[in-house]
């Protein structure tokens, strides 16, 4: 599980300077990142497998709702597996999510969008992956919302994901989109990812097999973090 991390493949993550996403212009380094083989500082990381989670931590329909009620909106299940690049499941890993409500409004003091808050929806959840890397959340499908970038810019429906593997060098924050959303192709944030095939991997597929009849529509979203290199002929020549 530990050992040298596989270097990040070029062209998958978005570049840092992406002028069509205007906030990146002053928040992106101009100097090249310094590349190096991983060391213990990146090959270790915080682990959360021992954490006691509340029964509703992964159920956003209920975890902020008043007793006897649930959040308003299209009821969905988001599930999938957390894997590494070597196709191994990553068990006991923490996944945290946050999202807007069904109207596209965030429960955040800096969000002034005119869509209403839902008194029964907080918008955050977390879970720990199972032995096979599996995870699941129940929530509402978030709404699209406008944001001040261009004069008429709308974010596609999305759920934010924060993912820990077992080492700090695997740390990832990303967003999940929904199959069939026409706003994905128009979104300056989604389009920071230069490779169409890479962006497609952020789009969760409708999963009728896991859909619960008369209850909730399922979407499947698998997540892949960096893997560790196998140790054939490892000699660590630079003393790391």
């Amino acid at each position, binding site marked *: 599980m530990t050992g040298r991390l596989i270097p990040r493949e070029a062209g998958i993550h978005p570049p840092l300077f992406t002028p069509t996403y205007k906030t990146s212009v002053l928040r992106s380094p101009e100097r090249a990142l310094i*590349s190096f083989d991983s060391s213990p500082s990146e090959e270790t990381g915080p682990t959360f497998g021992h954490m006691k989670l509340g029964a509703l931590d992964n159920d956003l329909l209920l975890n*902020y709702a008043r007793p006897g009620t649930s959040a308003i909106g299209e009821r969905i299940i988001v599930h999938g597996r957390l894997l590494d690049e070597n196709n191994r499941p990553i068990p006991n890993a923490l996944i945290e999510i946050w999202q807007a409500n069904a109207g596209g409004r965030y429960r955040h003091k800096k969000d002034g969008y005119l869509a209403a808050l839902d008194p029964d929806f907080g*918008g955050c959840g977390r879970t720990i992956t199972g032995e096979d890397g599996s995870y699941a959340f129940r929530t509402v499908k978030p709404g699209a919302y406008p944001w001040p970038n261009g004069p008429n810019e709308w974010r596609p429906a999305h759920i934010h994901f924060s993912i820990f593997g077992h080492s700090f060098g695997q740390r990832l924050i990303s967003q999940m989109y929904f199959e069939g959303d026409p706003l994905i192709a128009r979104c300056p944030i989604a389009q920071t990812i230069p490779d169409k095939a890479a962006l497609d991997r952020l789009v969760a597929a409708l999963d009728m097999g896991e859909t619960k009849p008369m209850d909730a529509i399922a979407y499947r979203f698998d997540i*892949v973090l960096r893997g560790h290199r196998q140790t054939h002929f490892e000699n660590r020549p630079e003393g790391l």
Partner: protein
Amino acid sequence: MVQKFDKPILTPSQTAGPYVHIGLAPEACGIEDVPFETLGREIAGPEAKGDRIKITCRVVDGGDLPLRDCLVETWQADAAGIYPGQEGADPAVSGFGRMPADFTTGEIIFETIKPGAIALSGDRKTPPHISFWIFARGINHGLHTRMYFPEDDLSGDPLLARIEHRDRIATMVAEATGPGEYRFDIRLQGAGETVFFDI
């Protein structure tokens, strides 16, 4: 034709956006009745061995404005240079910090212990350092840097030896502002831009 690799491909990164607090620091954004406790608040518990330190940070953009909507995560070893999870690690050290910037000043404060030097293979050691990971609206992929300490000899660090422009190393060294107190400003762009890594 050749054999095809049948391996999954990395999930790409996206910005954490301005509402990252909802998921990762809910009490900071005005959510009452937070359904669960916030992570990363105690890096080193009261029983932890080592010298207590306080680090005050800011993340500054290319227009010299401190980011007031970013989050910073830190990862560090215990006072003996052993990372949590490794054999012999100090059980009172979680090693993991997570703090949002103050919405008015952009200041971020970490209270922890000073980590020890990290053993590498052979007799070599990396001088004490704390790994930083910065994410915010406008940052498409979390930025990784390290904070070193001004009182330490940094000459033996193989990672720092890689940096061709030697004057840039100072961007990763905190400033001592008092006994056990440090200031560490991270500059995203322009003059004095902090060194960021792809490791």
